[in-house]
């Protein structure tokens, strides 16, 4: 690690407050101008289990959660046991010495930082989470930052409970001071800067961007990892005048959302793969009805219920194959948390302009990941352009029709037909899922006619011919004539960016192509860029190589190597670097990465599994793998 950054690991059971401790620390450092990238690896339980949050902090904003912790906050014994051995020389381990102690010798050069929590925060007896506040205070000190940031965070968090503020601030300060007095600071120290940061999750950005893009209807059925979009929307519904509804299932979600769009408002919905499956039928409806709609699939590890709290890029086939038949639609995958903002701004624009579904593919890593974003990013809002939508006017004015009968599905050159919404005088029509003529009259009944049928399919298909003009080019960086080209899509952008840097630093010249728009595919640009590549390696977070298949289908380009991961955990930069090396060394064409850090050893209390070796303890455990 040669960036001036620090990676803090915070671990505990569900219910121990891992996420909120992380959030407090992240906000505290962000308010001192530090960029943060956080990834929380948690389980599908409400209490118990092991929650493991990694927080990477640097004035130069980190793009992923990195691959080796510098500091550990262990909120329970299990965490200390699991992760102590992951620290390298110069690393620190903080824990409540009144509750836990190391089960084995720490690795060489690692500083144990026991915190006498009951002394530092007397209220921790009643309120065990006070230990987190103490630890966060201490960590801040070891990082070299000021206390002011943390105090302000605590004040805002508990704004309505001054007493709680006081006791937390006291506990944090006690931790801060204790660390100053008793422990060595971390070898690499952070320095406050004046940069302002907003600390956001991808889901929050997706929601907020929609609100800023005039989304007035949001409908959902809860599903991890998409639920937080609903929560943000619900929390802001009244204030922003957005109709936010939780309804009976994802089928009603998508149908209601399309209904709202049909009636003239911008509406959005989101879910994960299982719910998306239920939405697919209606996405085809929006296709043939030419109704705009923005629908998000936040992928998690599948198939089926799969591993609901884990990340994966395994739903590309599903989203691509949503619904029967051919119909126009656009598919885009944001590449990072800040990119969610631009993608949603564009999605609404494109949906309105092309009167078609825009399907957004996010994943758990982006959606639940927490990152600091320069607030300037959120000023890049796109002018609200409703395309050829004819809306009712408050004063009941009749829109011009030039005396011609209104044809909702007029066979225009562009394929786009002016879209009146219910309530507009003089533009009556029926929108049908059956094939219909320009006037909306069914041609699926007695009037079936190959000529009309083909005309309407062609009209709809033609719409897609100009979409490419509106898309930003695929992202390409690095030396043109590199030895290796890494190709990715979606959430792997940050980790790939760092891996490319490291590979170049290590003498393997590498460049990086990242694809955002899956449909329509920027065939020409991609072919041009990859045509020059000497060795193409595709990196994706799934087992079968869904993107590799997509790329080949669209461009004919078959990669020379693949780095894949489908164990639930996201890539870390080192995985990519090692994967590229293995491929270059001819070890494998497909490298399937596995997160095998000793910390990941599992305790299987049932003891029923064939390969369960029982709970290993101490150093022995760290050594056995």
């Amino acid at each position, binding site marked *: 690690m040669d960036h001036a950054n620090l990676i803090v690991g915070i671990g505990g059971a569900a219910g121990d407050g891992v996420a909120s401790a992380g959030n407090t620390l992240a906000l505290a450092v962000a308010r001192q101008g530090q960029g943060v990238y956080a990834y929380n690896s948690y389980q599908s339980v409400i209490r118990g289990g092991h929650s493991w949050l990694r927080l990477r902090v640097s004035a130069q904003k980190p793009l992923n959660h990195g691959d080796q912790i510098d500091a550990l906050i262990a909120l329970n014994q299990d965490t200390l046991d699991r992760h102590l051995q992951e620290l390298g020389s110069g690393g620190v381990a903080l824990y409540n010495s009144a509750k836990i102690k190391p089960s084995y010798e720490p690795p060489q050069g690692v500083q144990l930082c026991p915190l006498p929590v009951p002394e530092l925060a007397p209220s921790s007896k009643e309120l065990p989470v006070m230990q987190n506040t103490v630890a966060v205070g201490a960590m801040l000190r070891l990082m070299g930052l000021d206390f002011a940031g943390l105090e302000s965070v605590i004040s805002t968090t508990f704004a309505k409970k001054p007493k709680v503020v006081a006791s937390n601030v006291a506990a944090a300060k006690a931790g801060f001071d204790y660390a100053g007095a008793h422990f060595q600071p971390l070898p690499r120290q952070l320095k406050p800067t004046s940069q302002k940061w907003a600390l956001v999750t991808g889901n929050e950005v997706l929601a907020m961007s929609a609100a800023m893009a005039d989304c007035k*209807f949001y409908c959902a059925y809860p599903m991890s990892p998409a639920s937080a979009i609903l929560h943000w929307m619900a929390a802001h519904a009244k204030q922003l005048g957005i109709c936010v509804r939780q309804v009976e299932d994802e089928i009603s979600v998508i149908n209601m959302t399309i209904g*709202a769009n049909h009636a003239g*408002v911008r509406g959005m919905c989101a879910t994960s793969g299982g719910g998306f499956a239920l939405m697919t039928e209606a996405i085809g409806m929006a296709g043939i009805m030419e109704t705009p709609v923005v629908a998000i699939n936040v992928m998690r590890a599948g198939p089926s219920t799969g591993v609901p709290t884990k990340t994966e890029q395994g739903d590309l086939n599903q989203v691509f194959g949503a619904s029967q038949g051919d119909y126009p639609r656009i598919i885009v995958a944001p590449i990072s948390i800040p990119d969610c903002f631009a993608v949603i701004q564009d999605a609404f624009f494109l949906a309105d302009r092309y009167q078609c579904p825009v399907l957004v593919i996010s994943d758990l890593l982006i959606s639940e990941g927490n990152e600091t974003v320069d607030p300037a990013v959120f000023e890049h809002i796109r002018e609200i352009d409703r395309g050829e939508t004819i809306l009712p006017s408050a004063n009941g004015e009749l829109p011009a029709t030039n005396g011609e009968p209104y044809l909702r599905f007029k066979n225009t050159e562009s394929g786009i037909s002016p879209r009146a919404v219910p309530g*507009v005088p003089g533009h009556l029509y*029926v929108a*049908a899922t059956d094939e219909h003529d320009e006037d909306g009259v*069914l041609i699926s009944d007695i009037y079936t006619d190959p000529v009309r049928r083909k005309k309407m399919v062609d009209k709809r298909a033609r719409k897609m011919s100009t979409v490419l003009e509106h898309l930003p080019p695929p992202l390409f960086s690095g030396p043109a004539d590199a030895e290796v080209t890494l190709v990715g899509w979606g959430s792997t952008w940050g980790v790939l960016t760092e891996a490319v840097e490291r590979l170049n630093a290590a003498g393997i010249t590498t460049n990086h192509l990242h694809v955002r728009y899956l449909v329509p595919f920027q065939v020409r640009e991609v072919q041009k860029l990859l045509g020059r590549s000497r060795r193409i390696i595709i990196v994706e977070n799934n087992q079968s190589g869904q993107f590799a298949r997509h790329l080949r289908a669209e461009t004919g380009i078959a990669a020379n190597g693949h780095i894949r991961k489908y164990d639930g955990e996201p890539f870390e930069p080192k995985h990519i670097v090692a994967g590229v090396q293995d491929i270059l060394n001819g070890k494998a064409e497909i490298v399937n990465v596995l997160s095998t850090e000793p910390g990941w050893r599992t305790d299987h209390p049932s003891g029923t599994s064939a390969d369960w070796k029982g709970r290993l303890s101490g150093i022995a455990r760290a050594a056995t793998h």
Partner: protein
Amino acid sequence: MTTLTAATPRKLEVKDFKADVPPDWCPGCGDFGVLNVLQKACAELEIPPHELLVVSGIGCSSNLPGFFRSYGVHSLHGRALAFATGAKLANHRLTVIVTGGDGDGYGIGLNHFIQAMRRNINLTYIVMNNEIYGLTTGQVSPTSEPGMVTKSTPMGNLEQMLNPLALALASGCGYIARGFSGDPKHLQKLYMDGIQYPGFALIDVFSPCVTFNKQNTYHWFRDHVYRLEDKGHDPTNFHAAMDRAIEWGAKIPIGLFYRNPNPRPSLDKLDPALQGEPLVLKPRGLTAEQRRALVEEFM
């Protein structure tokens, strides 16, 4: 019904609600009556066609919007209520009528039906209940009678009939009626009341399928139905309504089963975002100040 536009210049007539496309139902199909009476009711209620949205699913009955002059949607099988709910919330000034079949509404769409009533979305739901799947050429429906022989039950239907009226009562629906396509005057009154009811209104209509249901024919219905209005039924009495709803035998009631004397406020009256102008007429986007405040929350 408040109108979106200035009052229509002239009195509306039935022909104002007739589409250019003539219905293509089988001659004698009960759905003709359902359509004709609906056109009359809307004309009498003076609903401007452009402020009227008729949403259907898929089925013979669901072809209705194509023959009705207004804004129309012919959506997916079973999903009309969901689609209509979204449209109504986006523009709650629209008069929204949902039309469909027994398979559409009580089969595949049943969940939306029950939840829409619970949710009390302000629309009128007209079900052309022919106790059969018509468009798919005659399979058993959730409202087919036990023992009924159809293409999918050649040995007779083994399941009990679904009771939409009892379910509606159990789901808090405030307006529950049943009509018969062969009794148009009576049906029209139910439509007009239902459309004016300030909440979810269900009108189940016996609408014979002359092609595939040879059991529940016009004749059969005429033999069986009686009007609740003729028997002094009190439609404000929940228990009496339940008693009538479960009546199915030699005599079968039609008419107004239940009308909540104290209608619950419908969803659009409760949702804070829907107060005042409909969403579709609200100013676009957020102000710079609103946007700044949202971002501040994260800092």
